[in-house]
């Protein structure tokens, strides 16, 4: 396993700039998740590290070595894509053996067998090894394509939304599984997603991308509790953070244009009146949609609240965030 370092990377496709001056270090053994909406540059970053694309400027280092001019095969990276592209005419075993049979690697037969059995065990697909790849369910096929990456011992695993085509339950299971595989192997993962739950639950570090710029990089808890901007704050947290005019609840710090309130930063039962517009019982919690001085906000309350639409509830900010006019956090 190895550290991956991006140094002042930019990438343009014609007139369109996909990445601007991105510098980032993925520490050896880290699980780094790149988070951002469609078009933020996540996949481009992954492709530059893999060598599928070439940067317009800047350099990629893997294990301290410059990757300039090296092909994907020479970089020793393993990729998993959203769309599992398995060889349909091969069995699960043959699919998983395939990367080890590469003439570049010259892996001994016994070693191939041992490695495939070991990975199949981890992914709980041992009993499917002799099935045709096409005879599997979607979740199983994705496990095989993850397995095909894991049989190798690459410098870094690159994964592009590997779970997004799976159903919710399987996604939740595989999240935990992938995280424990990564931790047990001590592997370096660079993982792309637009799913904030995946980012929060799996990452050791999250890189928040906004239109080709890396705007914040740190542990999920740091990004949740100390976001650098409105944009970064909005990437994590369900329901979404409320952004309101700074002075809405009273005096605001100098220079503040917006106040940011996550649900737990809204204290209920004290402060000023707000109107309950809608109550959503989600089971483990209840969401309140409130109207406060003609602004909408959303917060969370006890699952069995007796509040209903039309009720008045007092609210006040509790250790809120403040942002300046450009959206940068100042408090």
């Amino acid at each position, binding site marked *: 396993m190895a550290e991956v370092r991006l140094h002042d990377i930019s990438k343009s496709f014609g007139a369109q700039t996909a990445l601007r001056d991105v510098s980032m270090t993925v520490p050896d053994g880290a699980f780094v998740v790149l988070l951002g909406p469609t078009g933020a540059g996540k996949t481009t970053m992954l492709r530059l590290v893999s060598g599928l694309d070439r940067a317009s400027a800047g350099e990629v280092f893997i294990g301290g070595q410059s990757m300039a001019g090296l092909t994907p095969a020479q970089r020793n990276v393993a990729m998993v894509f959203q769309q599992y592209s398995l060889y349909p005419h091969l069995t699960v075993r043959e699919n998983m053996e395939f990367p080890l049979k590469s003439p570049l690697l010259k892996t001994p037969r016994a070693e191939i067998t041992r490695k495939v059995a070991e990975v199949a065990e981890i992914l709980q697909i041992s009993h499917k090894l002799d099935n045709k790849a096409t005879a599997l369910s979607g979740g199983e096929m994705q496990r095989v394509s993850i397995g095909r990456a894991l049989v190798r011992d690459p410098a870094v695993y690159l994964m592009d939304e590997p779970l997004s085509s799976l159903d*919710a339950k399987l996604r*939740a299971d595989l999240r935990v599984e992938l*995280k424990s595989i990564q931790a047990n192997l001590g592997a370096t993962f660079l993982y792309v997603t637009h799913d904030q739950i995946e980012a929060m639950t799996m990452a050791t570090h999250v890189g928040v991308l906004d239109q080709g710029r890396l705007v914040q990089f740190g542990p999920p808890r740091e990004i949740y509790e100390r976001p650098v901007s409105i944009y970064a704050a909005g990437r994590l947290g369900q329901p979404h953070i409320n952004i309101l005019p700074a002075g809405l609840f009273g005096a605001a710090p100098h220079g503040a244009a917006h106040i940011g309130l996550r649900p737990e930063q809204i204290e209920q039962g004290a402060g000023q009146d707000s109107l309950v517009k809608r109550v959503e019982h989600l*089971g483990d919690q209840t969401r309140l949609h409130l109207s406060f001085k003609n602004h909408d906000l959303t917060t969370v309350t006890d699952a069995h609240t007796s509040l209903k639409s039309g009720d008045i509830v007092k609210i006040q900010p509790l250790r809120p965030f403040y942002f300046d006019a450009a959206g940068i956090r100042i408090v």
Partner: protein
Amino acid sequence: MAQIVIKNVRKEFGAFTAVQSSSFTIEDGEFFMLLGPSGCGKTTTLRMIAGLELPTSGEIYINGEEVSQKPASKRDIAFVFQMFALYPHMNVRKNISYPLVSQGMPRDQVRAKVDEVAGILGITRLLDKPVGGLSGGDRQRVALGRAIVRDPACFLMDEPLGALDAEFRERMALELRALHDRIGATTVYVTHDQLEAMQMGDKIVVMNHGVVEQFGKPQQIYDWPATTFVARFIGSPAMNLLDFDGMVGNGTDHVWLADTRVQVPRMISGASGTLTFGVRPEHVRLDDAAGFRGRITATEYLGTTQIVTLDTPLGPVKARCGSQIAVRIGDTTGLGFDPRSITLFADNGHALLSVANQKVLQHG
């Protein structure tokens, strides 16, 4: 406005039974969810309400009138599909006008009506645009406009948000619900997404393999599942279900889990053999003094809360607790359960009645 009554409705396709004798009532003005995994019969049920499929047996009443064998055109309903089928060669106004024009409504009336609906949906500025260049959300709004413009007694929606990405789906869900609250028309909505169902629905029917598993208000179904299927399907993470050997009867107020006495709501039914102990993750607390023990195998940070997975003698258990609590993978700790929230299930998967769940399960 419409009340819809489904009575013993059954649908067979050859040897395959898609829906087995379903009965439930959708009250006038309700936002009603048909929820279940793919193949559970929810879409078939919706299509029978619409008149796109005819039931093999049973009755469907819309406002007291039996319509089960009537064609779709004779029922006062509007259908919104997952794939918004707009006419690509027409602009937004023509797309929304289409149902009214084909009914023969005078042009000035059509114009006024379309303007009103576009105002409700916030798409007035798009009326003269071709539908080709619209975003996914705007296309869905146009499709909704075409349904609303007819003032139908009832809207039927088949996963209308299924094709949208997560962030946008959230916003459209709120918008749809707000729209419903303004118009007040009965809405029947099919989804496989339990969160969407909980969030938007006044009532939910949970289906599996063509069978209605449970019918009721979202919070009641979440708190007091009628079957282990519902317990697993609703909630994320799902309810913890721990199999154990035991016996309960009238008046029982505790069970033994791996030699630990655990309090449960007072039972008013009995069973013995393999039983299942059901507890929601937020009702499990890490309590070192508790006798039932587990080893922490994973933690998932979620902002305000975290999910902690533990290996116990009865299998894995997930606990939802505050993210300020420090937990270390590999540590062993005790698990306490909120005694008021426990459901026990018999080995056929059905919940056993207790003083806690009887009100919900006997009236659902």
